[in-house]
């Protein structure tokens, strides 16, 4: 019989690959201070909503922090850079695990 946890694990690996392009864009924009990328907030919002469901709450939390900061009239470039760096480390770990 197929185990649901095994299915979830496979879905999670698939998810990490699926969002790879978006996460890479988000990370590079945050690190480089390119906050005018039109989809940036939307990408952060989507990752915030989906990563936790795939069992990656740390990624969801970082995306939430980025989204909240990007919503501000004057977002802190320093904080967003730090979030981008943390996200990059985490994403690399996730890819290695997969």
């Amino acid at each position, binding site marked *: 019989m197929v185990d*649901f946890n095994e299915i979830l694990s496979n879905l999670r690996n698939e998810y990490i690959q699926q*969002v790879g392009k978006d996460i890479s864009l988000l990370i590079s924009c945050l690190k480089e201070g390119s906050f005018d990328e039109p989809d940036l907030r939307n990408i952060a919002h989507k990752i915030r*909503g989906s990563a936790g469901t795939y069992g990656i*709450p740390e990624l969801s939390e970082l995306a939430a922090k980025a989204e909240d900061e990007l919503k501000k009239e004057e977002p802190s470039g320093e904080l967003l850079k730090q979030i981008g760096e943390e996200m990059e480390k985490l994403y690399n770990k996730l890819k290695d695990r997969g």
Partner: protein
Amino acid sequence: MGLRILLVEDDPNIRMIAKTSLTFGSDNEVVEVENGKKALELLREKDDNFDIILLDVMMPEMDGFTALSQIKTDPKLRHIPVAMLTAMAQKADIERSIELGADGYIEKPFDPINLPKQVEDIYKRCKKGE
């Protein structure tokens, strides 16, 4: 008992895990659409029957609040239970959903293991209250 579920969500990753969770080892059937406009088209034009609707809040074209309001003011559709998929800690969204007639809400991120029970509980509660 299998439920016929309309899943309205713009993020394909959320649709994929929700559909897998809701159909795994059950007789549930899930139909997916990516925004409120498409959901209403399906509900009105195809006269499709659903036991429950899972409705995301933030979507392009037509958001969840607009779709919910139209469903709950349409005499042909308002009997269908609607559960809103809301981001955790968005209390204002939950309050607005209830005001507009939502029958329940499921917070995102949801646990894919518990999702089928959450949906079934909302459905059963609505059927009891009829």
